[in-house]
């Protein structure tokens, strides 16, 4: 076989793989939308769910998904970026650093159900909080943190060494160089990492079953006092997310319209992830353009 044929075969193989990936994705979207879109209505999005009667909505579950995501990222992003900075800029190469890196990799590949059990032991029982948003967010942090650290480290390492040297050679300290030159340059890749991590939070059910629980108290959306029992902002209340809701109505739902609720929820979940991704990227590119003065 000559090299020209080999080149053609390779090109063909990669195009085939790309087509397979795109068609799986398109098929999934199509299936979810065909089945779910017809159930999505304003009512569906704005009424609380019902345990027994038909016609329940997903208002609280939708809010809970976004709120848990917000709390999780609030914890994950600063710690993850800090860890990434440490690994890329401060950790001396050697056995200890290698050990830390191995631990991070193992942590990120733990099955989420195991993280859920761990969360049950630590964030639910040991702390005595019971099922809470904070417990769920901390459990999600456990498996999001490694991804965040890893992507930040890689993003920082990908910043050209020239830029770092240029800043240091102007008499700027290491920390100020990281803050004003390295992190802004690495920002787009770090943002991608954060978005990927967020996607996992949206879709996660197993780790939340035992930490954030399967129920939501009656919420009053006019109550913004985060310490009140009825407030949606209270982080010490149980919270069933959309992904958990899909699982629970399908496995133990007593409502007659399981099909409608779960298909509708699935479509809403996918749309939410899509909107969140595009939105985050759009805001990120505005920030990046402002920082780098590219219009």
């Amino acid at each position, binding site marked *: 076989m000559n090299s020209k044929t080999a080149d053609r075969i390779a090109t063909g193989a990669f195009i085939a793989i790309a087509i397979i990936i795109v068609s799986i994705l398109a098929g999934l979207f199509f299936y979810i939308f065909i089945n779910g879109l017809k159930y999505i209505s304003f009512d569906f999005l704005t009424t609380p769910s019902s345990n027994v009667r038909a016609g329940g909505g997903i208002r609280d579950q939708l809010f809970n998904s976004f709120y848990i995501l917000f709390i999780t990222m609030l914890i994950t992003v600063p710690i993850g970026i800090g860890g990434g900075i440490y690994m890329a800029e401060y950790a*001396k*190469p050697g056995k200890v650093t290698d050990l830390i890196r191995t631990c991070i990799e193992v942590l990120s590949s733990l099955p989420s159900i195991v993280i859920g059990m761990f969360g049950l032991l630590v964030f639910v029982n040991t702390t005595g909080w019971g099922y809470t948003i904070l417990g769920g967010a901390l459990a999600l942090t456990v498996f999001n943190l490694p991804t965040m650290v890893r992507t930040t480290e890689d993003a920082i390492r990908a910043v*050209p060494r*020239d*830029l*770092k*040297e*240029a*800043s*240091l*050679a*102007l*008499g*700027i*300290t290491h920390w*100020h160089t990281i803050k*004003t*030159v390295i992190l*802004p*340059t690495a920002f787009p890749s770090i943002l991608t990492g954060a978005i990927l991590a967020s996607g996992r939070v949206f879709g996660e059910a197993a780790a939340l079953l035992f930490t954030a629980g399967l129920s939501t108290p009656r919420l009053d959306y006019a109550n913004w006092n985060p310490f009140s029992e009825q407030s949606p902002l209270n982080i010490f209340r149980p919270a069933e997310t959309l992904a958990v809701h899909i699982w629970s109505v399908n496995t133990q739902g007593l409502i007659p319209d399981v099909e409608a609720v779960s298909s509708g929820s699935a479509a809403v979940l996918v749309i939410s992830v899509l909107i969140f991704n595009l939105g985050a990227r759009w805001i990120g590119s505005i920030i990046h353009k402002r*920082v*780098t*003065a*590219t*219009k």
Partner: protein
Amino acid sequence: MVTAIKERITLDVTAQEYREFQPEHILTVKNLEIFYGEKRAVNGISMDIGKNNVTALIGPSGCGKSTFLRSINRMNDLIPGARAEGEILYEDLNILSDDINVVALRKEIGMVFQKPNPFPKSIYENITHALKFAGMKKKSVLDEIVEESLQKAALWDEVKDRLHKSALSLSGGQQQRLCIARTIAMKPTVILLDEPSSALDPISNAKVEDLIVDLKKDYSIIIVTHNMQQASRISDKTAFFLSGDLIEYDDTEKIFTNPSVQKTEEYISGRFG
């Protein structure tokens, strides 16, 4: 060193007057050795670097000239396993000593690199970046320094209408002059140039060379170059390095017309390297 201090005391002059009194050297290198791990890259060199001079460092790749240059503002600190022995005296201070404030040193001894490396920020911010860190916040002052340093770097006329556009939109030669501008904005005394025009086209190169000759009125300049014509055109003194040794160091004219060492002559006439 001891005699210098004695002299200063007996003459009863301030440090400032002393420097004016003895202006010819800005840096004194004594038995400098630089190692990367076990490997020795620079073998005990000694030389005086003239004040308000352009000193060119020439020699084949791997001869230690860039390593030497980078040790003058301690950029080698970034390389794991690199260490230096001996002395580089700057205003009677040993730059290589552990208790030197490296950040402050680099404000005095600036550096321009081989590849233009502007920050991915606006032209204006490229210059104010380090000034702001040094505590200058007032916009009128910053504006003034930006204009002044771009003027000095002969870039002002080309960029004055787009100061807030990205520095990456400039051509390679303009980027390199911007890098020089942001270095002189810090008002250093010494500027180190590591093959500053090797990545540039001949026209940009000529501009950078003119600029360097112009800058020596205010700064002491040390330049590493692979370009023999460049060294002979712009420098006052030339040092020839080979395998980590300083082979010959003399007035540029002498090096290029009548070198005293056989190896130097062979190198500058292109017979090796």
